[in-house]
């Protein structure tokens, strides 16, 4: 099987930088144009030409258009609008640095970008834990701490939104449903290339004073602090656009691009979870962006949406913010849970238990997630009549979540558990998410939440759901699909070592935080009362072990990328379509359109047909399972 990308040798290493450099140049030109426009208008009104936040906002708005066109929208898309022929993108390794339409390349671009951001924000977490070694703060002042904590928060939220969805969603959803690509490949590339400006904004916010309001950016604080807050808001709007376009693309792809015979009842469960997350991303992300736009207008245009002194309402912001940000936690976690169920079925050698109920669980969460947001606001000062209904809806969401647990446990029950690194991570998700879910009940219950809200109990809870479920699933997914994406096998021993260090490090870091929350430690603090120091030292040391486990991960990945054994098409002998094509898959995914005639997880079912048959593909011996 030839791999188109490897046919041509790259002309020169420097040529990879050309589109990026052009993007930066056009972006700067756009920025200059925006700033000049404001300068002319202001000068005309007799004011100073430069107004920091106003000028930057308009400069950025035009700058991002310049960046996108420079980096590839013009060459690969825009030329068509003027009757010109579009240019082909580069091949070989350089396509990873270019505006490329291949969903697999975009998947790798997402995965690599967000793994780098994950490691960076992990370093911020190490700084946070170093600070909390001492009650008076061991390494930095309060101002720096607040900014490091805010950066850690928002970068990790971005990682949670986009690593599985952007990475595995892009790479594997089209293959899992038997499609050649996503429905809108150019929109797909566009949504990835909106991400670099987000990272640049967040990491350069320091130049204008950074911001210290966490990832939640509650006003009035976020109306009074340094101009880094503006960078944050612009970054969120940009990232939100990327997220909405991604959601739209996945929905369309899953609805319209399924191979013949790929009925809704035969969709791999990971695709169902992506479908659910895509609905949430498409419907809700705009609310976060709207909240950010209102913050920006309050800052630069003298509106007063959230200024109490001028008739605005700070609590309004929290409603809009959580109207997105609660569904967002399901955008984070649903694809991780889908991936976990996927791995559990293949490595238990059993059908996915109660498949239809699990799908019902995903869709039930999608529906309910829209009516639970105010449980983040039980002590916000909102009308107390809102507490009871949101308590009830929030508790009810544990029923569809319970169905996903039923599916996981029923699949494991009496299974032939094949203990490989992906399976360990999937089982880790079940354990961690159990703790995350059970402790969530204490926070949904308004009377106990009165004490627990804004304490380390909450910090522990959401790290259990986001690291414990999503990041563990991400790691499991990387080990699971590494042989498919690279054609090489990772080192099993190092993989299992990574799992055990990460699993123990994670639990020993975050379990004691529940205790800290119950004993008077509130969140987002640079200093604390001395009676809590002992437990904090323990948490910090365990946190350092958790961080160190990722060194093994990175070493394993890089080493196996070069020296790993050839993996073959189907090292896991799994039934789903991606394992029926070569590793890595050809550019067009399937040499001929696959025909789907069976369920993806019918392991051990007598007389069950193969899930899918890939005509004329390599590895025809594999399709009969």
């Amino acid at each position, binding site marked *: 099987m030839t791999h188109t990308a490897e046919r041509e040798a790259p002309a020169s290493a420097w040529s990879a930088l050309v589109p990026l450099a052009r993007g930066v140049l056009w972006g700067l030109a756009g920025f200059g144009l925006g700033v000049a426009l404001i300068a002319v208008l202001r000068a005309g009104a007799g004011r100073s030409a430069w107004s920091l936040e106003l000028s930057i906002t308009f400069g950025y708005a035009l700058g991002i258009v310049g960046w996108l066109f420079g980096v590839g929208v013009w060459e690969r898309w825009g030329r068509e609008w003027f009757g010109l022929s579009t240019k082909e993108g580069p091949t070989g390794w350089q396509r990873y640095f270019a505006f490329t339409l291949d969903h697999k390349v975009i998947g790798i671009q997402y995965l690599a970008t967000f793994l780098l951001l994950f490691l960076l924000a992990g370093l911020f977490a190490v700084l946070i834990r170093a600070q909390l070694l001492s009650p008076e703060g061991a390494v930095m002042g309060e101002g720096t701490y607040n900014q490091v904590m805010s950066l850690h928060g928002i970068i990790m939220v971005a990682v949670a939104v986009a690593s599985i969805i952007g990475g595995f969603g892009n790479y594997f959803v089209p293959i899992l449903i038997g499609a050649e690509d996503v429905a809108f490949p150019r929109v797909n590339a566009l949504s990835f290339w909106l991400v670099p400006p987000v990272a640049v904004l967040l990491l350069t916010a320091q130049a204008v004073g950074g911001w210290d309001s966490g990832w939640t950016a509650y006003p009035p604080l976020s109306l009074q602090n340094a101009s880094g807050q503006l960078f944050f808001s612009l970054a969120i709007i940009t990232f939100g656009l990327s997220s909405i376009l991604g959601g739209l693309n996945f929905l369309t792809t899953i609805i319209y691009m399924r191979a013949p015979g790929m009925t809704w009842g035969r969709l791999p469960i990971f695709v169902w979870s992506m479908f659910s997350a895509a609905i949430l991303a498409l419907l809700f992300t705009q609310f976060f962006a709207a909240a950010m736009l209102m913050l920006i207008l309050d800052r630069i245009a003298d509106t007063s949406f959230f200024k109490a002194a001028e008739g605005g309402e700070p609590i309004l912001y929290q409603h809009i913010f959580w109207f997105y940000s609660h569904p967002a936690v399901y955008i984070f976690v649903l694809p991780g849970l889908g991936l976990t169920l996927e791995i559990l079925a293949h490595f238990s050698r059993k059908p996915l*238990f109660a498949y239809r109920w699990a799908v019902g669980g995903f869709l039930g969460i999608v529906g309910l997630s829209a009516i639970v947001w105010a449980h983040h606001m039980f002590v916000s000062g909102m009308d107390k009549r809102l507490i009871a209904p949101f308590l009830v809806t929030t508790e009810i969401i544990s029923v569809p979540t319970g169905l996903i647990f039923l599916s996981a446990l029923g699949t494991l029950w009496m299974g032939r558990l094949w203990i490989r690194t992906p399976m360990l991570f999937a089982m880790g998700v079940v354990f961690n998410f159990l703790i995350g879910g059970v402790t969530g009940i204490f926070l949904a219950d308004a009377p106990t939440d009165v004490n627990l809200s804004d304490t380390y109990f909450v910090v522990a809870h959401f790290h259990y759901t986001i690291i414990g479920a999503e990041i563990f699933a991400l790691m499991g997914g990387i080990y699971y699909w590494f042989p498919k994406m690279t054609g090489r096998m990772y080192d099993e021993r190092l993989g299992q070592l990574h799992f055990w260090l990460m699993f123990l490090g994670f639990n020993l870091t975050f379990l004691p935080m529940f205790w800290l929350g119950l004993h008077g430690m509130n969140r987002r603090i640079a200093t604390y009362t001395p009676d809590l120091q002992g437990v904090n030292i323990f948490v910090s040391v365990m946190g350092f072990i958790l961080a160190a486990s990722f060194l093994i991960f990175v070493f394993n990945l890089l080493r196996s990328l070069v020296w790993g054994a050839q993996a073959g098409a189907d090292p896991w002998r799994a039934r789903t379509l991606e394992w029926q094509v070569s590793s890595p898959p050809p550019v067009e995914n399937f040499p001929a359109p696959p025909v789907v005639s069976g369920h993806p997880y019918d392991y051990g079912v007598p007389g069950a047909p193969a899930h899918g048959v890939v005509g004329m593909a390599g590895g025809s011996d594999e399709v009969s399972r």
Partner: protein
Amino acid sequence: MKRDLVAAGALWLILTAIGELLAVFVDFYPLAKADKGEDIEHAFRVLVYFAVPVFTMVVAVLVYSFLRQHTTEFPTDDGPPLQGRGSIPLAWFVITSALTLAIAIYPGLVSIPNIFGDEPNPDLVVEVEGMQWTWFVSYPQHDVARVSELVLPVDRTVRFNITSRDVLHSFWIPGFLMKIDAVPGRTTTISLKPTKTGSYQTDPNLRVQCAELCGLFHSKMRIPVSVVSDEEFAAWLEEQAGAADAAPLSEETEAADALSGGIER
């Protein structure tokens, strides 16, 4: 298969028994020093009792499945093809729904009026204003205004009227297990009754701690709380009234206090 169910069930029961014993006898609960704090602590315990069997069931299945059959080589055969299409998922759905509704009602809905309700005729009204980065406490019934410590008589009902001058803060007394945000432009309230005497010096959880991120010195936005006898409270009020007469506070000195006051800035 039947033997496996019995064995896993036994594992579940044993783990549950251990878990419930730990939940009853190990003291990992916060120590409440107010009436509503005690109610919240009770609600917390009830939820723990519910959570233990749920937790142990998942752990029992996870552990038992692993012990029953796992391999590091590719398995020689597939597992039993249990599809989960029968009555098990329905039973699971019904049971989890019933459990969920049960805890939503108790300790959830049942406790809301008590925890969130306001005392209409409190023995003491305390007005609190949050400001970057300290708290000002006033006792309008006793002409004590804008002090940066909170002193309360034991076994008397108190209603706090809370607001903020600048950004969001959250008025949290960890020792009472109660909090509510301080919102500029609004007055929020909580009512409670301290039930044990004590002070910040002996119990660090007797403090007013800002729990909503409010900028630079957020973590140090805390003032001490003392719960004292009626006599001590009366004496303290008198002392404060005298001090206030001697040096009436201006806006400037308040701002200076805000930066230097509070605890151990």
